[in-house]
């Protein structure tokens, strides 16, 4: 009768003896429930004050006595219950179930403990019921009594306790409780795993066995303040003396009055998390260095540092070779001179055959090596190593080698980090090579264009000059035909010269690094307009719609672009028309400014607009309008180099509106 307390047992006995006595006295059992007798009233009072459900049924299952809780349970008054069976009161299924156990008791004469589940308005209730026979002096059963205790609450809390215990036990975290003196009171499996102590050997010991002396303060801080310290990360001690990094959550354990009686500690092993964080930091820092694009040796050294820390070793080397196998860079960490010389030789010898995959040797004693290498490695005290090739698109660039003084199990994280680091170095080398090649190409291009501007133009100038001289000094002796040919030579050579100059300007604009500064379009446009107005025979009217907004640009490039636009505007007018040009600016959003050059020229049909800014594009025959067809290409190139855009609006009938758009500058 495990569920029963002592009080229940005493009561049960009292009820039993009372009934026996009453029966013996020849009193009709039926009168018990009537309350006529003083003894009966006494019994009724007693059972009514019990916290258990108490009833007596006769052999037919009719209620003889019920207490207050039975009335409550069955939701009938005592008068309604007495003399009735469960079948009269309860749903049939419930009644049958109850009757079954009742009959068992009546038949066997042995008390029975059963758990019964009853639906109550507030939900299912669990009762533990003791049903026992009431026997007369001859030993025959004349009634059955039952005492049922509602154990619903008790059952729930037990269940909760079991669940909690299961959770605590299955947790990977260490869950520990300690009293106010710092004595360990409980210890779960997670704690066993993290610290290495079994529950039996640690419970009862001071919690300080886990804490290095320098950190004892952390543990007791919260108790002094009387409040939880929350979470902190610290280093603690395992049974074997090694350190473990843990994240600890401490909270107070209070008694029912709210007084602190101890502390619970949840500790999580964060060694691997910390390690991962470190790996990430290493990789991030290397990437930052590579991005900064410093001199290559700095990248190599940073990569060597990264490989050492990410692979958990202090010994490493980096050897980089040119395509020909000649060492271009080498650096060593904690390796003897003898080893360096030998390793470098081997690297150069094997360079072309070098593997594209990393080679991990967790234990050199089992490595399939030839003698000189084995002896060299052994002498150096190397017990494990990894060779990490640095390659770019199947091209070997060199390799890292990392060394360990003891056999080493390479972790997934280490291999991953190694791959990223070798890729970073390969990328940096490749980038450096490409940058250098590009720089060389630009230098060559510069030299080429410089020599063109000097050497190619010289013979053209000579042609031009001599044609002029011929015309000037000997023109009178020539006939009209001859003079016309000379004019053609002059025109042709002038045109060739302009072409060369414009091509050079275009090429230069494509390559030059431009420093953008605030430029006053007002000053620039005014200056250019004045120059053009004086040198152009057409006497153009150029109106500047002051004030023009300033832009961010490169002044010489802008001058080039605006002169070209204005020259075009002047040039492409119908014969006999005075060019009328308006220059204005408008803000485009807060960030940009658009400069418009609007003319009264011949216009450009919309279907040709897309060809306008191309190289050597001419939309008009040379005979009508002179030009090289490079002017607008130069405009677009320099504007794009300044981060801007160009465009045109024209219907092909009445004038064109060219624009360039650039970042706005603060008004100076």
């Amino acid at each position: 009768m495990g569920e029963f307390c002592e009080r229940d047992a005493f009561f049960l006995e009292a009820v039993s003896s009372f009934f026996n006595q009453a029966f013996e006295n020849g009193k009709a059992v039926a009168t018990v429930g009537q309350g006529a007798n003083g003894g009966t009233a006494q019994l009724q009072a007693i059972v009514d004050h019990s916290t258990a459900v108490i009833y007596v049924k006769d052999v037919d299952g009719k209620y003889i006595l019920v207490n207050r809780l039975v009335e409550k349970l069955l939701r009938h008054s005592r008068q309604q219950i007495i003399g009735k069976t469960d079948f009269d009161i309860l749903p049939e299924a419930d009644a049958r179930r109850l009757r079954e156990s009742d009959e068992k008791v009546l038949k066997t004469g042995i008390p029975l403990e059963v758990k019964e589940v009853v639906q109550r308005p507030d939900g299912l209730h669990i009762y533990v019921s003791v049903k026992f026979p009431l026997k007369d002096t001859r030993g025959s059963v004349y009634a059955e009594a039952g005492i049922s205790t509602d154990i619903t609450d008790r059952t729930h809390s037990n269940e909760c306790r079991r669940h909690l215990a299961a959770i605590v036990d299955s947790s990977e975290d260490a869950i520990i409780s300690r009293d106010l003196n710092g004595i360990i009171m409980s210890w779960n499996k997670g704690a066993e795993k993290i610290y290495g102590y079994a529950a039996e050997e640690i419970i009862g010991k001071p919690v300080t066995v886990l804490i290095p002396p320098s950190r004892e303060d952390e543990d007791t801080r919260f108790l002094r303040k009387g409040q939880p310290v929350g979470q902190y990360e610290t280093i603690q001690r395992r049974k074997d003396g090694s350190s473990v990094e843990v994240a600890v959550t401490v909270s107070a354990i209070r008694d029912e009055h709210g007084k602190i009686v101890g502390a619970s500690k949840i500790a999580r092993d964060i060694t691997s998390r910390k390690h991962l964080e470190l790996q990430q930091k290493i990789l991030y820092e290397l990437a930052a260095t590579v991005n900064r694009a410093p001199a290559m040796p700095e990248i190599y050294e940073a990569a060597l540092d990264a490989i050492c820390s990410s692979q958990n070793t202090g010994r490493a080397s980096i050897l980089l070779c040119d395509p020909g196998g000649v060492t271009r860079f080498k650096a060593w960490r904690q390796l003897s001179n003898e080893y360096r010389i030998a390793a470098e030789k081997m690297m150069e010898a094997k360079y072309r055959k070098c593997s594209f995959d990393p080679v991990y040797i967790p234990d050199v004693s089992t490595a399939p090596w030839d003698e000189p290498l084995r002896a060299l490695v052994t002498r150096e005290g190397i017990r494990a190593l990894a060779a990490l090739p640095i390659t770019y698109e199947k091209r070997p660039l060199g390799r890292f080698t990392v060394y360990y003084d003891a056999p080493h199990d390479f972790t997934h994280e280490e291999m991953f980090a190694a791959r990223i680091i070798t890729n970073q170095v390969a990328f940096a080398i490749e980038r450096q090579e490409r940058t250098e090649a590009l720089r060389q190409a630009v230098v060559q291009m510069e030299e080429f264009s410089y020599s063109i501007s000097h050497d190619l133009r010289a013979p053209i100038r000579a042609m031009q000059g001599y044609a002029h001289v011929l015309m000037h000094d000997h023109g009178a002796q020539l006939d009209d035909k001859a003079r016309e040919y000379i004019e053609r030579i002059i025109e042709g050579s002038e045109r060739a010269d302009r072409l060369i100059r414009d091509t050079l300007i275009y090429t230069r604009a494509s390559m030059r690094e431009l420093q953008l500064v605030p430029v006053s379009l007002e000053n620039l446009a005014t200056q250019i307009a004045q120059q053009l107005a004086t040198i152009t025979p057409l006497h153009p009217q150029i109106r500047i719609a002051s004030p023009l907004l300033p832009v961010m640009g490169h002044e010489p490039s802008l001058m080039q672009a605006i002169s070209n636009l204005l020259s075009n505007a002047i040039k492409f007018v119908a014969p006999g028309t005075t060019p009328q040009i308006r220059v204005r600016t408008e803000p485009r959003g807060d960030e940009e400014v658009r400069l418009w050059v609007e003319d009264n020229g011949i216009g450009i049909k919309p279907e040709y607009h897309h060809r306008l800014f191309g190289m050597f594009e001419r939309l008009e025959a040379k005979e009508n309008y002179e030009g090289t067809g490079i002017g607008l290409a130069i405009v677009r190139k320099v504007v794009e180099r300044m981060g801007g855009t160009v465009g045109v609006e024209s219907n092909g009938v009445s004038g064109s509106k060219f624009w360039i758009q650039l970042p706005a500058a603060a008004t100076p």
Partner: protein
Amino acid sequence: MNAPVILLAEDDRNDVFFVRRGLEQAGVRAGLQVVSDGEDVMDYLTGQGIYGDRNQYPMPSLLLLDLKMPLANGFDVLEWLRTQPALEYLPVIVLTSSPEERDRQKAASLGATRYFVKPPTLEMISEIVQLMRTAPTTGNCH
């Protein structure tokens, strides 16, 4: 008194022809001495070798300097001139085929008086006439 002398440093004989013709047509009354590389310019100005004969090779009142020449180029000559206090008086007109802004700036920073892009123009010739008029007719070591 001898006519003032212009020293022309130019390795392109066509350009020499055009300069000479331009000067003649503008009526510049000056003797034209021609050298074809930078080293010759320095030798001429310091009277080295054959240039020691100042009757044959008088000190010039003006130097017309090409930039792209064999051996020492125009910039080398300009740099060298800065180290020659005795030649401080000598105006230098750069006459080059380079329209490059950086060349123009470099020449100016090295002390060139003017910078003209070939071919020689009327403007250049009139500048020369102007300089011939204002500059001392010749140097000290005549």
